[in-house]
């Protein structure tokens, strides 16, 4: 994996039993049945697997709408994670767009379009 510092990296959970990598949260490894995980952090370079523009969110996100939401395929870890985009412009996000990880804010993984 492309290791990054905990402050700047995209967080994954790695099973301490078998080494399988997961997108958090994960409570029990379904490959080896262990519940012991380590946090690991990736640089999070990837590409957009699919995206949408959410125009009718629920109350908490109403003021942010419309906003793009995507599933991002992170290259080195070969895992898809949900994410939003810091520098989105109307129609800028496409399937296959290259992105880099910027930060995690609350539950949101923020990416930047390359």
């Amino acid at each position, binding site marked *: 994996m492309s290791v990054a510092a905990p402050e700047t990296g995209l967080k994954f959970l790695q099973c301490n039993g078998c080494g399988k990598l997961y997108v958090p949260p994960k409570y029990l490894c379904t490959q080896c049945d262990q519940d012991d995980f380590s946090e690991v952090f990736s640089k999070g370079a990837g590409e957009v697997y699919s995206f949408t523009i959410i125009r009718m969110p629920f109350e908490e996100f109403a003021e942010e709408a419309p906003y793009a939401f995507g599933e991002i395929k992170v290259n080195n870890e070969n895992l898809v994670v*949900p994410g939003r985009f810091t520098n989105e412009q109307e129609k800028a996000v496409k*399937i296959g767009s290259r992105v880099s990880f910027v930060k995690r804010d609350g539950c949101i993984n923020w990416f930047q379009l390359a």
Partner: protein
Amino acid sequence: MRDVAVIGIGTTNFGLLGEMTVEEMGVRAFSDAIRDAGVEKKDIEALFLGNFTAGMLQGQETLAPMIAYSLGLRENIAAVKVEGACCSSSIGIRLGYQLIASGVHDLVLVGGAEKMTTASTARATRALSAAMDPVSESHTGYTYPGFFGLVANRYMYEYGGTIEQMGMVSVKNHNNSVSNPRARFRHRITLEEVLESRLVADPLKLYDCCPMADGAAALVLCSLERAREYSKKPVVIAGSGMSRGFRTTHETINDKGTMLSLPCTVSAAKEAFGMAKLQPGDIDVVELHDCFTIAEIVDSEDLGFFERGKGGRAVQEGLTQVDGKTPINPSGGLISKGHPVGATGCGQAYEIVKQLRGEHENQVRNAEIGLTHNAGGTGAICAVHIFKRGF
């Protein structure tokens, strides 16, 4: 295992029932089903009620025993709420089926009730997102229209499907419910109206999305050996499939390598078809979970009616029209009949039973075998039931 039949059906209309409490909707649908079956209330041994949002939107729980009391059912009864988001009331069909098939009970009531339209769209959307994982999905600004927007964009990218094909699902389902007195929408729409409606979650527009609705639906289930005491037209549950899928969109993609299939649909369908010893080509009429137009297309592929990537073209070619090879959602479906989430599964069964009895307002000719498909969460749960004439 004993055969199980539907001997009674009941429902409210689906739509704007703001003057009724959710309990009243449930009581009306269940009592309608009891009257239709002609059973004595004292003989009913269990009640399952599907509901998803009453706790959040009305602050109302403990609905199942309250409804059992209001109906005047006997005191020694298990009256249980079942919850699996938009799949809630199909869980009741499954559990009622199992209790009767195994010989524990002879007569079980199953149904669902939901009251949604008196809440604002933003508040109801939030309640529905309770079916998502908060940590990775709902607290990031993700919504259900967003989920299907992702599916739609990927479907167009991989298969060359078009937004027009999706729009044709909406046109078809609106046409279908013109004659359905239980439907929320009774008007035709044109493809242009769908395409010109406002965007909700790109590329999906307003008419690609099912509406919120209030409503309730109920069934009386009975062992087939006793069904003929009550009903001249019992409808047998030939197959019951139920599954858990994935917690989230990204876990589905990471485990299955695609988001153009709901694995829970595939596994529930496999179980139901296996139990019924039937193939997709044997099904005469389908009510499936068209919460969004793209969902109908993907579901029709997952259920085995069309090859992968061909569901959009099937709609375009008219194969899913009421007189087509595989009639899908002749009731209007979730998109036009409406989607009172916890009642939807039993509402689909209501429509299929009417079809198999030959009593539907939008009748599929000679329908003998029907299928319902009801899903909940971000592909977390699914039920598929296959019904056939028992007369």
